[in-house]
């Protein structure tokens, strides 16, 4: 029998192969006994083969960027396609302070290096803030020098110097420390160690505009997450010659650990224009917000992902994919990026590119960061194209699951009720219920996964159901209803028109039935309560489909009872079921029933036509755990308590007929009246829809919309504006 299996990478498998070979081809018999000489030889052979296989595997893997695992190899392969992995980034802190009692001094200089330290222990760590270059400011007539909005970098400032030697043809200029923020590297070259002639070299990452006399340097990452500086050869960039002295200054930072710091005290060095140290007159440092922007060195996975993308973009932002590839390189804290051209909008906006960014920490980018991004992107974008960095728009997915379980397979006792407790995600841990807890834990993991938390994410209905089914062995099936929601940020006291785009088609319920048959037509859109100018009662949004079943009219109604709506105003806006868009005519909202933080919001939800929900363009899908419910129900058939299914509890696969979101606020209940608790109405409940005259209602100005929102999620009117978020 020939030795045929060459693909084994496991020691025991290799050993078994050799034994099989000997068994078939040799007189020796003792290979099965560990004490035998033959067994020792087999072990040696197998070990040798194992090491060779491992080495061959490693060598082959490390040759390709997709399969390489060692950082220095991934970096080296990325270098071949012109990609420099992002270094660690120091957190930036904007700081201001003054120095007073400076008489007869024209200017003072804040020396590079240490400037501030954390005033108190922050998260059990101390941090220092430095600047990589001197900052000189004039002294005012009142003897006060003001350092205003200077940028401090978290980390220590270090210097490294080299003397160029012609005797070393392979001389390297290496920064010996790890954790260098390469954006802070400053290079000055002295003619010689004794000369005062000094020139500054700039960091470049392309050859564009670089000539023989250009004083530039390039950097590359080498082993151990260190960096090497590369200088020119008098053909591309100016060459260093003996006895030049190279002085390199840089900041070594703690990366992301340096974020969110606000309290620092001055520890820097200030000298006057003649070099005399200033030792008194310092004010406290005031900071412009928390330190931000600190990030770790680019991960191996990120290099593998973005290296080829940046290569394909050729450092030029032309297509939307180019922007998505370049932004993580520019802004390290970007968790997910979505970019799309204005031509994709309706109506199109040619010549514009819209970018939404989800930062790792927080929800929105500051205006300062947006401006920085725009200016950075200007280096890459095509001339004439405008870049608009827009705020993130969240599309929330709410899932309501009835989870059937086999009561024989779980130790919990839910009592005799067939229908168990209903819990929201926020209630985890309140009452022990292993089925529910496991399901919610699995849902929580799915909600945090990158499958959802990225632009272009998709809520996959079948996967969601599968996750619930597999979360606990006792679960037999689940019926899950999906809603999509956006939060309208109300501009209180202002006339504003609102536009909310969901990017998903709405489902119309009861559209083919008449009121006489006992069902309500419309009410596909549900909102939380709010008040408008001129109407004392809390009102809600409702909708009535047009004959084409693609668009509909929005109206406002109040509730006399949870199932007794009274329309107070018609034609307050339109709804397009087909594209999933809600337009509200200018309306003056005076208060809302809900707030998010301090922001007044109106939650508006609908049932999607498809249970797979996509995040269109700038919409960022989030599974809202606060509105995700898991209701445990005993599966009486599988539990063998009712095999015939006579008393089987049926859960509807379609949403109930509640008219509004949350607890209904009834007419009169806000003025000391009894508040009603919402209960799920049975589908057969008959309710008469009452219409009232609308001419007496004020607060609605039906002005045709003439403006347009580029982000397709917000709109503005002449008297105010608002947006969803």
């Amino acid at each position, binding site marked *: 029998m020939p030795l045929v299996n060459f693909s084994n990478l496991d*020691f*025991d498998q290799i050993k078994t192969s050799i034994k099989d070979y000997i068994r078939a081809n040799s*007189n*020796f*018999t*003792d290979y099965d*006994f*560990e*004490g*035998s*000489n*033959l067994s*020792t*030889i087999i*072990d040696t052979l*197998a*070990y040798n083969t*194992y090491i060779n296989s491992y080495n061959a595997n490693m060598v082959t893997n490390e040759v390709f960027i997709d399969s390489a695992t060692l950082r220095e190899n991934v970096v080296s392969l990325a270098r071949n396609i012109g990609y420099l992995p992002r270094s660690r980034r120091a957190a930036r802190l904007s700081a201001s302070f003054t120095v007073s009692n400076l008489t007869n001094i024209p200017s003072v200089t804040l020396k590079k290096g240490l400037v501030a330290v954390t005033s108190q222990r922050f998260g059990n760590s101390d941090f220092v803030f430095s600047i990589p270059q001197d900052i000189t400011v004039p002294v005012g007539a009142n003897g006060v020098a003001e350092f205003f909005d200077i940028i401090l970098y978290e980390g220590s400032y270090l210097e490294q110097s080299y003397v160029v030697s012609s005797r070393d043809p392979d001389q390297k200029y290496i920064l010996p420390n790890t954790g260098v923020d390469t954006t802070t590297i400053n290079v000055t070259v002295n003619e010689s160690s004794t000369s005062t002639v000094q020139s500054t070299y700039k960091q470049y990452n392309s050859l564009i505009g670089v000539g023989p006399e250009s004083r530039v340097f390039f950097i590359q990452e080498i082993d151990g997450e260190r960096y090497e500086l590369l200088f020119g050869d008098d053909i591309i960039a100016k060459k260093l010659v003996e006895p030049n002295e190279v002085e390199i200054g840089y900041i070594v930072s703690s990366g992301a650990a340096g974020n969110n710091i606000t309290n620092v005290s001055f520890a820097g060095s200030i000298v006057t224009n003649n070099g005399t140290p200033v030792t008194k007159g310092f004010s406290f440092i005031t900071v412009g917000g928390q330190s931000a922007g600190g990030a770790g060195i680019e991960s191996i996975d990120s290099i593998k992902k973005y290296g080829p993308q940046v290569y394909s973009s050729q450092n030029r932002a032309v297509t939307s994919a180019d922007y998505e590839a370049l932004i993580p390189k520019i802004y390290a804290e970007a968790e997910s990026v979505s970019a799309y051209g204005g031509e994709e909008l309706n109506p199109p906006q040619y010549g514009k590119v819209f970018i939404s960014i989800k930062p790792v920490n927080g929800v929105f980018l500051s205006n300062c960061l947006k401006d920085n991004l725009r200016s950075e992107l200007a280096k890459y974008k095509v001339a004439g194209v405008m870049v608009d960095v827009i705020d993130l728009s969240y599309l929330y997915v709410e899932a309501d699951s009835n989870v059937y379980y086999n009561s024989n397979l779980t130790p919990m006792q839910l009592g005799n009720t067939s229908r168990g407790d209903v819990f929201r995600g926020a209630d985890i841990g309140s009452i022990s219920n292993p089925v529910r807890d496991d399901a919610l834990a699995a849902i929580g993991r799915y909600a945090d996964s990158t499958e959802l938390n990225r632009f272009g994410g998709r809520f996959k209905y079948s996967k969601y159901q599968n996750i619930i089914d597999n979360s606990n062995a006792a679960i037999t099936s689940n019926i899950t209803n999906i809603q999509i929601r956006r939060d309208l940020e109300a501009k209180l006291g202002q006339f504003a028109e609102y536009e909310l785009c969901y990017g998903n088609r709405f489902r119309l319920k009861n559209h083919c039935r008449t009121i006489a048959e006992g069902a309500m037509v419309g009410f596909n859109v549900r909102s939380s309560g709010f008040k408008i100018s001129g109407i004392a009662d809390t009102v809600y949004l409702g909708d009535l489909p047009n004959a084409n079943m693609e668009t509909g009219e929005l109206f406002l109604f109040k509730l006399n009872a949870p199932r007794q709506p009274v329309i107070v105003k018609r034609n307050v806006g339109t709804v397009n079921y087909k594209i999933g868009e809600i337009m509200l005519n200018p309306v003056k909202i005076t208060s809302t029933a809900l707030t998010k933080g301090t922001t007044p919001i109106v939650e508006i939800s609908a049932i999607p036509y498809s249970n797979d929900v996509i995040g269109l363009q700038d919409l960022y899908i989030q599974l809202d755990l606060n509105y995700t419910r898991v209701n445990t129900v005993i599966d009486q058939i599988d539990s063998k308590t009712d095999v015939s299914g006579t008393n089987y509890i049926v859960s509807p696969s379609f949403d109930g007929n509640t008219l509004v979101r949350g607890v209904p606020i009834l007419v009169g209940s806000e003025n000391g009246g009894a508040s009603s608790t919402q209960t799920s109405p049975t589908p057969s409940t008959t309710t008469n829809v009452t219409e009232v005259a609308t001419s007496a209602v004020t607060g609605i100005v039906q002005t045709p919309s003439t403006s347009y929102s580029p982000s397709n999620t917000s709109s503005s009117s002449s008297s105010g504006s608002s947006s969803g978020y």
Partner: protein
Amino acid sequence: MSVQERRSKGFKDISATFKINPVNNDLIGLVNYNAIARSVRNLILTIPGERPFNPVLGSNVNALLFNQLDNITASSIRTEIETTIDNFEPRIELNEVIVRPNAEQHRFDVLIKYYIVGLPSDVQEIKIALVPTR
């Protein structure tokens, strides 16, 4: 099960000397009794961890040789030998293990008596002198 009830087709191992048999110019082989005796000897002298990916194979006799040269250590060595053979050499059934401290030679004299499972034989004996070496 009686020792005599089982039959083996025989055991054949390769010699660690790697010398050539002058008759057939092949490697010298070890058969049956010799092969098993060599195996027992190998097991006792193998230090756990010495063999790749099999950290439990072998005995700790080597470490015990640096203890006091007395009967207590001899007893420990005997136990270690018995355990090792029971665990890793299924071809023999131990009859007796005798370990004697030899103070004059500064060594332990070991006598292992055993039956071979599956081969008709008398009690086999192996004598090993365990000398601490560095």
